[in-house]
């Protein structure tokens, strides 16, 4: 029998536990924001707040990144997440380390039956996707948080109890040096799928578990393959079951094999058994070494509400979906970016408390949509009855001959920046604005994310206003967190060059003009065809849950 080697273990960074001042004090200190859990969503939120100058305490029971060593968990980071990371200042590191891709192919047997090119609809500075082991994302976020120096990062700090108060939350924390109690105006639970806080508070997660079984082999080998997302509905080298093949950083491939439902997880993940599968796929002459082998089944859950008074749930603590389409980690990162600016503005008294309710009103439908989409993929990949097998056979057979059936082949629909429904703060609903490259009137380059990276304010992009309009609008919105910019024209405002791509992407008819309100999370909150100083001020007040007249 062939012997299979494991690569040396990754050396992940470790950060020291520093005893916090509360340990030796009887006074209970109140913090504006306490985040529990230093995974992708908790770290993104802490970094987002730090970038805005908002001090948060981040508690994590571990002192490193990653889970179970090199187990990389999430690997695909979607454009919206990458744009967030650009705003937070870690995108360059991610792009340098990760694998950029936009093309996916799906096979049945040896035949290609579906493909997509996500670059075709992108106008962003960031690519549709970058693959990178999750622990690198967490690592870069921690480095950036430490660099910003605003966040109180507390490692080896386990939350043992939370107690909701009328105006905050009391939190008991256990550390290697003893226990202490703090209070928070707002507690953010980012402790992941098995959130102990959720359990302790008795918040139902409505979990369901799939019987579909998979086994990940993260493996390094010398065989030139395209850096595309390849999936097989029924791979000849995996007994006609599904296979995923995707490249990550450091030349490590994520190969994910669908297993029989009744398989023994210990047996299928033995290096000899996993190695035999790889040998079948790669052929006899390709040398490879394992980085990680892990069997798994997936589950899903979705909380009824993401905000419970002064406690908000983000990331896996709030929602878990099957892995098809990378809608787990990306959704958590985007939860954090949705909540960060809202917490900042509310904490600074520049927005109403109802703005925090909009976190639930926007992100819960997003999670619901992701649950629907991923459940459909999961069902295509693991038919539940003879009839479902028959229909899938029909789809695959037709897809080999006819393009229409290719649209039905579903090995995952990749994560998107979900649209937000019409709501009190979003009379038109909202959709993402990509990180467009832009030019100032004098030719200097900028991007939407650069414009949003300074402070916490909405952007008002106004196509060719007059000087009088611009001056009146500045007066009408002086007390509001709004940065007014002109697009073209001669208004006296800071002015971006008129750009057809920008206009089209924002939904503006360049021949008519108009005004677009972009929130700090780069979502379009309002489009005013006939903007006036009063309607602009009203749109900002609506978006920020401020009363109609000046407070």
């Amino acid at each position, binding site marked *: 029998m062939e012997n299979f080697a494991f690569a040396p273990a990754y050396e992940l960074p470790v950060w020291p536990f520093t005893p916090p001042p509360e340990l030796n004090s009887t006074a209970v200190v109140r913090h504006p924001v306490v985040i529990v859990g230093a995974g992708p969503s908790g770290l993104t939120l802490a970094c987002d707040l730090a970038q805005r100058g908002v001090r948060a305490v981040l508690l994590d029971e571990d002192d490193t990144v990653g889970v179970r060593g090199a187990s990389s968990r999430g690997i695909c980071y979607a454009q919206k997440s990458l744009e967030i990371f650009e705003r937070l200042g870690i995108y360059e590191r991610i792009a340098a380390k990760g694998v950029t891709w936009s093309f996916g192919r799906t096979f049945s047997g040896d035949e290609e039956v579906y493909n997509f090119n996500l670059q075709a609809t992108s106008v962003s500075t960031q690519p549709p996707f970058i693959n990178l082991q999750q622990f690198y994302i967490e690592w870069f976020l921690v480095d950036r948080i430490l660099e910003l120096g605003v966040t109180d990062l507390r490692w080896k700090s386990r939350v043992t109890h939370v107690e909701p108060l009328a105006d905050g939350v009391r939190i008991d924390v256990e550390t290697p040096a003893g226990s202490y109690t703090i209070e928070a105006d707002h507690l953010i639970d980012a402790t992941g799928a098995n959130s102990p806080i959720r359990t302790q508070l008795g918040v139902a997660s409505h979990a369901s578990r799939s019987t579909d079984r998979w086994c990940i082999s993260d493996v390094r080998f010398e065989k030139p393959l395209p850096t595309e997302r390849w999936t097989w509905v029924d791979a000849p080298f995996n007994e006609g079951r599904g296979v995923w093949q995707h490249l990550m950083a450091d030349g490590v491939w994520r190969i994910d094999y669908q297993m029989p439902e009744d398989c023994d997880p210990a047996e299928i993940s033995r290096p000899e058994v996993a190695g035999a599968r790889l040998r079948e796929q790669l052929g006899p002459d390709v040398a490879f070494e394992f980085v990680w082998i892990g069997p798994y089944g997936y589950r899903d859950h979705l909380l009824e509400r993401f905000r419970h008074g002064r406690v908000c749930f983000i990331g896996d603590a709030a929602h878990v979906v099957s892995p098809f389409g990378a809608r787990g980690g990306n959704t958590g990162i985007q939860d954090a970016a949705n909540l960060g600016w809202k917490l900042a503005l509310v904490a600074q008294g520049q927005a109403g408390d109802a703005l925090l309710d909009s976190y639930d009103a926007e992100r819960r439908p997003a999670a619901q949509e992701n649950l629907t989409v991923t459940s459909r993929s999961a069902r295509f990949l693991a038919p539940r009855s003879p*009839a479902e097998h*028959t*229909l899938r*056979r*029909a*789809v695959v*057979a*037709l897809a080999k001959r*006819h393009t*229409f*059936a290719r649209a*039905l082949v579903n090995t995952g629909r990749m994560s998107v920046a979900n649209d937000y429904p019409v709501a009190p703060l979003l009379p038109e609903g909202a959709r993402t604005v990509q990180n467009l490259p832009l030019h100032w009137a004098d030719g200097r380059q900028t991007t939407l994310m650069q414009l949003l990276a300074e402070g916490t304010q909405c952007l008002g992009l106004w196509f060719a206003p007059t000087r009088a309009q611009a001056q009146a609008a500045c007066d009408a919105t002086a007390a509001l967190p709004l940065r007014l910019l002109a697009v073209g024209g001669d208004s006296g405002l800071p002015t971006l060059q008129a750009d057809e791509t920008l206009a089209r992407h924002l939904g503006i008819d360049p021949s008519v003009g108009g005004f677009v309100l972009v929130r700090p999370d780069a979502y379009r909150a309002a489009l005013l065809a006939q903007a006036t100083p009063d309607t602009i001020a009203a749109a900002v007040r609506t978006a920020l849950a401020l009363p109609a007249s000046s407070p």
Partner: protein
Amino acid sequence: MITEPRIPDPDGFYAALLAAHEGRTEAQSADLNARLVLLLANQCADQAVLLACIDAAAEAEEDTSTTTTPIP
């Protein structure tokens, strides 16, 4: 969903459908029907009509199962 007759030669269509199933096992016939459904669905190309057709097909089966009298 249109339920008025629209097939120009109903008997000819039905005969062709039967001919396509001739000599096939039950499983092969099920495969053929599934492919046919998908091809026809793409001709229709109207989501509301497709969903109405799925409902109508499911209802017709329920009617059959409740009205069938067992043969003694």
